C-alpha cells in the first residue's frame, strides 16, 4: 500500500511578522501615566458594556440610567462608603511600603470600633470632646492589634501574613464575646451595643459630606506629608529600596518600622471608628466585613501612594454603588455585577504593565 505523500509546508519564519519586544521604562511623566490609566479604564468599560448589551441592556439606556444616578443621594452614599475604603487603603499602603504584609485590616478595624465604643460606654471626657477621644481610642485600638504582630515578628520571627490574617478571627470572636455578653444592648437582646448618644456620632457637615470623610482626608494629607516630605518618609523609601544599605549607613530601621506599622494599624482602627460612628451608630457584628480585600486592592491599584489611594478609594466606592444600581435597574444577577467589577479592576491593574514597560513591534 502506497503511503500518501504529504508535503510539509515550509516552516514559517519566526520573524515573518516582526517581533514584539519589551523595554523597561524609566520615569514616565504623570500625565502619560494618567493617559494609560484612563485608556485601560475605557477598555474595561467597553468590554463591560458589550457584555451588558448581550444581557439585553442597550448602551443608550445604560447611559441614561447612569446619568440619573448622579443625584444627591447617590453622591452622599458614595462619599460615605469612600471614607472607610480610603482609610483601609492607607493602612495597607503604609505597611506594604516597608514590606510588612498587613492582612489584619478587619481585626484592626474591629479593635478600633471596640476601643471607640469603650470610650462611649465608660463616658470618658466631656460631651464636646467625646468624638475626638473615641477617634484617638480607635487609632490606639488598631495600633494595639497590629503591634502584637510586629512583636511576634521581630521577637519570634513569626510570619506576619499568617499572624495578621488569623488574628482577624481572634478579633472577631472577641467582638462577639462583647456583643453577646457585657456590651449587649439590654433593650433588644440582639448582638449589638447600646446606640451611641447623638454627640458620639459623626454627622453630615453639609454638601452631602459626612464628617467621616474629613477623617479620611486628614489621614491622606498626614500620610502624604509623612511619605513624601518627612525624614521618616525618606528613611522608609531607603529601607524599601535597599534594606542592606540602609542598615549599613545607620538608618534606624527598627524605629521607622515600628512607627509605620503602628500608623498602618491606626488608619485601620480609624476606618472602624468611621464605620461605627457615622454609619452604624453603635458597635455591630459586621461593620468590618470585607475590608481586607478592599484595602489590599486599593493599595495595589494606587501603588501605595496616599494621594492616589484617595482617588482609587473613591472610584471603588463609585464602582460598588453603580454595581448595586445595575442590579436595581435591570435585575441582572449579582454574579454579573461582580464580573463587571472584576473586569474593570483587572483593566486598571493591567495599565500598570504599560506604564512600566514600553511595547515595541520590530518588523
Amino acid at each position: 500500500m502506497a503511503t500518501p505523500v504529504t508535503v510539509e509546508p515550509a516552516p514559517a519564519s519566526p520573524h515573518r511578522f516582526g517581533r514584539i519586544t519589551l523595554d523597561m521604562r524609566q520615569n514616565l511623566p504623570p500625565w502619560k501615566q494618567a493617559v494609560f490609566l484612563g485608556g485601560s479604564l475605557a477598555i474595561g468599560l467597553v468590554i463591560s458594556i458589550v457584555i451588558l448589551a448581550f444581557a439585553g441592556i442597550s448602551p443608550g439606556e445604560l447611559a441614561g440610567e447612569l446619568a440619573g444616578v448622579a443625584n444627591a443621594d447617590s453622591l452622599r452614599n458614595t462619599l460615605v462608603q469612600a471614607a472607610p475604603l480610603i482609610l483601609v487603603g492607607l493602612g495597607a499602603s503604609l505597611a506594604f511600603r516597608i514590606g510588612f504584609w498587613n492582612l489584619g485590616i478587619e481585626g484592626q478595624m474591629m479593635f478600633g470600633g471596640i476601643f471607640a465604643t469603650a470610650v462611649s460606654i465608660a463616658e470618658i471626657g466631656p460631651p464636646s470632646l467625646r468624638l475626638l477621644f473615641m477617634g484617638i481610642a480607635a487609632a490606639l485600638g488598631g495600633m494595639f492589634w497590629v503591634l502584637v504582630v510586629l512583636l511576634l515578628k521581630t521577637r519570634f520571627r513569626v510570619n506576619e501574613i499568617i499572624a495578621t490574617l488569623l488574628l482577624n478571627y481572634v478579633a472577631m470572636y472577641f467582638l462577639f464575646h462583647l456583643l453577646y455578653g457585657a456590651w449587649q444592648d439590654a433593650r433588644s437582646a440582639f448582638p449589638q451595643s447600646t446606640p451611641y448618644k447623638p454627640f458620639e456620632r459623626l454627622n453630615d457637615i453639609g454638601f452631602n459630606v459626612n464628617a467621616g470623610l474629613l477623617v479620611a482626608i486628614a489621614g491622606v494629607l498626614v500620610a502624604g506629608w509623612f511619605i513624601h516630605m518627612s525624614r521618616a518618609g525618606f528613611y522608609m523609601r531607603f529601607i524599601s529600596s535597599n534594606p542592606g544599605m540602609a542598615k549599613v549607613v545607620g538608618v534606624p530601621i527598627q524605629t521607622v518600622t515600628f512607627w509605620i506599622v503602628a500608623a498602618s494599624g491606626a488608619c485601620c482602627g480609624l476606618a472602624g471608628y468611621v464605620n461605627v460612628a457615622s454609619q452604624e451608630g453603635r458597635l455591630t457584628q459586621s461593620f468590618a466585613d470585607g475590608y481586607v480585600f478592599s484595602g489590599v486592592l486599593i493599595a495595589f491599584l494606587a501603588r501605595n501612594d496616599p494621594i492616589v489611594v484617595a482617588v482609587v478609594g473613591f472610584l471603588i466606592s463609585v464602582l460598588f454603588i453603580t454595581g448595586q444600581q445595575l442590579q436595581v435597574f435591570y435585575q441582572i444577577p449579582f454574579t454579573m455585577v461582580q464580573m463587571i467589577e472584576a473586569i474593570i479592576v483587572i483593566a486598571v491593574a493591567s495599565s500598570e504593565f504599560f506604564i512600566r514597560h514600553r511595547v515595541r513591534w520590530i518588523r
Partner: protein
Amino acid sequence: MQLKKIIPLAAVAAMTCGAVAYAAGFTLSAPPKIAFLYFADKGDGGWTQAFDEARPKIEKALNMKLPFVENVPEVAGKITPAAESFINRGYNVIIGTAFGYSDTFKTLAEKYPKVAFLNASGTTNGANLESFYGRTYESQYLCGMIAGAMSKTGKLGFVAAHPIGPVNWTINAYELGAQQFNPKATVTVIFTGSWNDPVKERAAAQAMADQGIDVIGQHVDTPTPQIVAQERKIFGTGHHRDLREFAPKATLCSSAWTWDKHLIPTLKKIAAGNWEPSPYGAFPGIKDGGTDIACCGASVPKDVVAKVMAERDAIIKGKQIFTGPMKDTTGKERLAAGVKIDDGGLWKMDWYVPGVIAQK
C-alpha cells in the same frame, strides 16, 4: 391571632425612639411599587431563597413585578444606597430581610415618611415601618417531635447560628417536641457563630454524627447539616425551606417559611390604605404565615405523622408550647405552673430547658 400581643422590650425601644400612637393608619401617595432587599444570594438554599420563592406568589396575587437586590449585608453603608436607588425610582414599599437592617430602616423610615418599610426579623417599628418574624418555635417543636420519634439513640443534635432569643427558642422547642415521644431525649447544640458558614456547619454536623447523634436539626441558613446527615446515613430536620431537595433520604421534615401568607394580606392592606403597622412588629405563627411544617419524609411512620398533625392543629387553635411549670438546665423556675410565656420572654430567652446540652 395575637399580632398585637405586647413585646415589652420593643415597646420600650419604640417609646424611647419617639414613636407614640400611629393608629391613624398609613396611606401611600401613589399606587404601590414594591421592592425587596435580600440579605444573601437568592439561591442560598435557605433564608433568602424562602423570600425569593414567596416573591412569585406575591407577584401573582398583587398582579405586579417585585424587583430585588441580592447580597445586601447588614451594614448601613450598603443598605442605604440599595434602598434609596429604589426610592428614587418611585418605589414606595421596601421590604428588608435581616435583623441588621433594623437601625437603618428606622432612619430611612423617618427620612422618607411616605414610603412603607417592612423588615423581616427586625426590631424597629414606626408609623411607616413594621418588622415581622415568625413563631418558629411552633414548627421546630413539631420537627422535634419527629426527631424524638425517629431517633434510636435518644441523642439529637442541633446546628445553630447565634445564641440569641429567636434561636434559643427553636432549640428549646426542639427538645420539648422530642420529649413528646422520648422523655429522655437530649439535644446537643453547636453554635457556628454565623448564619451562613457551610464549612463550620459541616464540621459541627460531622462531630455530632461521630458522637452517636442520629437526628440533626438546624437553625442556620444553608442546608449543609442535612447533606452531612444524608452522607452519614442518619436523619435530619431542616429549617427555612423544605430541605428534602438537598437530602431526600435524610430530611424527615422541615420547618419552612410561608412568607406569602403574611406578606400578601399586609401588602394588600398597604395598597388599600388601611395598613396600621403594629408598634411591636408582626409575629405570625403557623396560622398566619410564619413557619409551617413541611412534612414528612417517607421513613416517618403514619402514627407519628398523625400525632404531629394533631399537635399542629392544637397550636393553630392557640396552644402555647412554652407553658409552665418550666425550669431551665440549672433548675431555676422560668415559668410557674399554668403560666404561658409572653412575647417579651420569648425574644429575651437566654436559658435552655433540661435535656439541652449547649456551650452556654
